[in-house]
């Protein structure tokens, strides 16, 4: 008898102590901010709430520039206008970082811990502009572009394919 009561009490205690992360979005966002891109992708598959959170551009802005000190001025308006940080990351930042890192450290060091240099920011942004211009403005009239291929404009094709270094 005593045992059964104890069990019931423990169960109630457990219920009280149960913690649902979804109730604490600020904590959740803080955690997501610290993830790498692949983990964010995985997190997006958990539930609809998480999916919506990971689509928030601020998260990707943090991902793009968290290693950059000081964070660049005025970039946000430009980036947002040209398609957002998530796109910047996928199309430019990630390939740029991973390839330049491989070139330099022979692939050994984790690219996440690198510190961005000003030049890499500039280069990524320039390429991002080229991407936008070509995709949005030239996309219709360009010579023989296959409509099904609209995901990546050809100028940045060299960034999309995995490099066998």
């Amino acid at each position, binding site marked *: 008898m005593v045992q059964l009561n104890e069990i019931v009490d423990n169960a109630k205690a457990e219920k009280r102590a149960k913690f649902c992360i979804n109730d604490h979005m600020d904590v959740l966002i803080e955690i997501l901010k610290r993830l790498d891109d692949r983990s964010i992708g995985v997190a997006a598959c958990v539930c609809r709430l998480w999916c919506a959170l990971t689509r928030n551009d601020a998260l990707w802005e943090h991902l793009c520039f968290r290693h950059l000190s000081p964070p*660049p*001025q*005025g*970039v946000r*308006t*430009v980036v947002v*206008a*040209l398609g957002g940080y998530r796109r910047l990351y996928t199309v430019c930042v990630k*390939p*740029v970082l991973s*390839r*330049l890192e491989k*070139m330099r450290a022979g692939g050994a060091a984790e690219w996440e811990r690198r510190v961005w240099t000003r*030049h*890499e920011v*500039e*280069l990524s*942004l*320039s390429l*991002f*502009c*080229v991407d*936008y*211009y*070509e995709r949005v*403005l*030239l996309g219709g*009239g*360009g*010579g*023989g572009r296959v409509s099904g*291929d609209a995901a990546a404009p*050809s*100028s940045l*094709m*060299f*960034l*999309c*394919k995995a*490099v*066998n*270094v």
Partner: protein
Amino acid sequence: MKRDRDLGKTEAVADGGSASPGKAMMWAAEPPDAGVDELFAVLGYKVKSSDMAEVAEKLEQLEMAMVTKMEDGASALSNDTVHYNPSDLPGWVESMLSEFGNFGGFSGESSSNLIFPNDDLRAIPGGAIFSNNKQSDNKRMKSSSPSAAPPPRPVVVDSQEAGVRLVHTLMACAEAVQQDNMKLADALVKHIGILAVSQVGAMRKVATYFAEALARKIYKIYPQDALETSYSDVLQMHFYETAPYLKFAHFTANQAILEAFGGANRVHVIDFSLKQGMQWPALMQALALRPGGPPAFRLTGIGPPQADNSDALQQVGWKLAQFAETIGVEFEFRGFVASSLAHIDAKMLETGPGNSEAVAVNSVFELHCLLSMPGGIEKVLNSIKEMNPKIVTIVEQEANHNGGVFLERFNEALHYYSTIFDSLESSGVTQGNSTENLVMTEVYLGRQICNVVACEGAERVERHETLPQWRRRMSSAGFHPVHLGSNAFKQASMLLALFAGGDGYRVEENDGCLMLGWQTRPLIATSAWRLTASE
């Protein structure tokens, strides 16, 4: 267990079936024979390269024999003959020939004739085609059919050495053209066609384009005057996408322009080569993000007249305006249509001293076209001076394709375009470029090749010159070089590192100018200039 050719002849048919797998196993056990011809190996025949001449001869004779036999109505092939192992090609051929009987007189009488008739391939120097191989001087055997014209002699093409022969033949043909020996050149050009087919990849493409250009020169079929400009724009667009050369040009020029503008409030860029305006979004973005905010940006684009009278310049200007609005840069565009840069003068562009703008002039692959017009380049450089620019950025191909002697021009062009095609070949595969892009890029380069080789006078517009030559020209016109800084160099290096073929591309700094090349050969050069007299 060496393969014994004579073994094939003495075996009976019954053994033929069982002998082949045995032989096949024997061959597999042998180390791969380096001297075996590749093309035959693909078909399953192992023929030593050294025996190729003999085999070729005999095959020719076999063909002749079969033809004549057929005409006679008798078919020796339907007889109950013993066919030996066909994998042993030389032996099989010989056995077939012995079936037909001795045709006599083919035991390699070498001709001591030293006179080279016009189509004689011995004219090719270096013994590449005719080494000590006397067997190739075979005598044609008497054929019963009079209608057969003397067939061309079988030329043994070893694909491994064919590349060298191809280059030799190309040069020999160019020399023939130089000496105005058109008949020889004609024969050589046809030979190039045959040799080119045996090659693969970059060598084949280069050879094909050069052969076509030489043929045009020989037969005086000059290419139609400039294709529709919209088409050539499309081609250059594909070139932009496939290879890093144009991106390098744009990024380095933009860096120089950005630095020259400094903190100016109103800036004006005059672009001699607007095309699709791919250079300017990146500059506008850099201006938008500069500390202190973006200046008012004015762009004047100059372009050639369109065949269908459509206003392509205005369309590009409109797209750039949309882009500028997206990123928040004040933008103004004006387009000028001119069939040649020499028709532009500074007054048209409203860059008089009353304007408080910082002016930049940009030319990518345009200035060399002016060299075909006497006085053209001087006029344009004077106009540029009148525009009073803070900086003039010039990007040109790094090669001397403007020499007076045709042969030298040809050789230079051959090296230059071979290098470019090599770079496309190496980096193209790993870039994920679509075949369409690569093909269009090759067409773009092919047109240049055609122009350099086949055209003359005012039509030859691809008059590339080297950086030292341009330096002399600019200095004598009153310009002073501006060194492209380390920022430009770093950006260029990073850009190239992104290309998978990056181990081949090299950025070099040459006395303040930046050159992009493949392996050891520089291919394009960016330089920046300002007026000597400071005002």
